[in-house]
């Protein structure tokens, strides 16, 4: 019985491993006035449900490419959706003319460069890729 449980836990660990090893953090341009966002706001921004904060600050979400570990980790942690769920969600909006997914930036270096030029953009990257060109914003709690 015990060995079976252990095997199950190991299998589960293997299944979840690719989703959990990257730690994504939310980043904006160093010039952005935004310092903190609630979890609900982060999900709403990246799902295209919110274009500006209650104070009128505009935020434009940008994505990393599908398969990027930071992207997988970000959507699992902040939005609670897998890549398949995300694709199904956007297919609903795209094919009913209701919206388009965030623009995809092909790699982290380009993302950092573009974030510096666009104070209204918000993106995410692996904690290890943080540097002075971008600013991490804290997220969590309720709005």
């Amino acid at each position: 019985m015990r060995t079976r449980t252990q095997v199950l836990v190991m299998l589960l660990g293997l299944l979840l491993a690719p989703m959990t090893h990257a730690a994504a953090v939310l980043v904006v341009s160093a010039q952005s006035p935004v310092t903190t966002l609630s979890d609900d706001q982060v999900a709403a921004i990246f799902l295209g449900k919110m274009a500006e904060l209650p104070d009128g600050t505009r935020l434009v979400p940008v994505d990393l490419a599908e398969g990027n570990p930071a992207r997988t980790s970000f959507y699992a942690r902040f939005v609670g959706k897998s890549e398949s769920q995300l694709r199904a969600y956007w297919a609903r909006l795209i094919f009913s003319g209701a919206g388009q997914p965030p623009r995809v930036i092909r790699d982290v270096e380009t993302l950092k460069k573009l974030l510096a030029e666009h104070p209204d953009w918000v993106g995410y990257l692996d904690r290890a890729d943080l540097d002075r060109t971008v600013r991490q914003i804290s997220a969590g709690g309720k709005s």
Partner: protein
Amino acid sequence: MRPRSIVRCALLLLAAHAAAGAEPQAPSPAAPTVPPMAASTDAAFSWSIGGFGTLGVVTTDEREADFVDTRTQPHGAGATQQFAFGPDSKLGLQLDAKYGNLSGVLQIVSQLQHDGTYTPHIEWANLKYQITPDWDVRAGRVALPVLIESDYRLVGLSNTTIRPPIEAYAIIPDTSITGIDTTWRHRFGPATNSIQALYGSFSANFPEPHSALHVPRSGGLSDTLDFGPVLFHASLAYASLVYADPSTDALNSGLVQFGDLLESIPGLAPQGAQALALERSYATDGQHTRITSVGVSYDQASWIALSEWVRLTNAGFIPTSTAEYLTVGYRVGRFTPYATISALKSQTFSPAYISTQGLPPPLAAAASELNSGEQSLLFQQENTQTTRSLGLRYDLRSNLDLKFQIDRISLGAGTPGLLLNFQPNFVPGSSLYVYSFALDFVF
């Protein structure tokens, strides 16, 4: 502007925009659904092209009638074909264009039509003007937003089940309406509320005997309250009806002529009045119907649930119908097993007829013929049925899924349910199994 002109203008503008932007900013083929220009640069023009499709096959143990997805399809699995691709297979292509606050959508869909062909039709063609980030107006061809999945019911990848419950969608014969609409979105705390108001007209064509439903005026209000994983939806719509159907038209004019004739014969006036009353009760032209719906959906990490209730009110021979369904699914990695129970109940008409008692034989024969014509028309509207489904969705890739589903359909006592093409040995009120397999994709 007349609806047709609105569509034409929308198409012309779209084409002009597409032509203007095609050269310098062709989207990368690797990410066709992502606009090449960022939304932040408002003045820039961007466009994208994408598509969706389903390759589905259906089989059933019923041999005396056809299972179809909607009654606009002329045939399906059962009496006509043992294995049918028609009910679920479809291919859609969409062009999106955006210039500042103005955007346009053109979506063309090929699926089994009333005439048995797969001739592509325009599902969406509209121009949207974003007045503020949370308020827009659209003109052109848009979806009738009666149910939660109405807007994307054709996009298999977006939905858990092989097809949205046919019982609920049988109440709305067409998915698109030509007209104008406006949506206002309001965010408070973690919730987003969207109110949509819409006005326009639509037509739906049905197979044999080549009837067409025209709705010259339709309007509606729809509200969606989105709490993240939980979503509430309610809608109210009305539709004025014109049913152009040669056999029904012939029946109605037969009833009027017969009624007028009997009323002019001394002693036969009561039967004449019965014939005229039949015509008045069951003619649809100029009548209107109301559609009301409420629904809730839940979509969190593992659990998916979707439940709706929808009612259409009586107009002529179209009976008051109520449908409700519940789908529950549970994600286990790439697999999502799910179950659905879905029911449609149509009002049974009280058996009205022309009394043949006291009529001379030739008139009695005519009355019997009119009676049986009316009974057969009303019988086809008694669409009571319940479907219990078990299915499994497998996400092969993020843009590709496979689904398998078993439906147990129980037709309401003495009714034909939503089946078509009845053979002589068909038993109203029987039960059947339907087995479906589908591959859904988007690109």
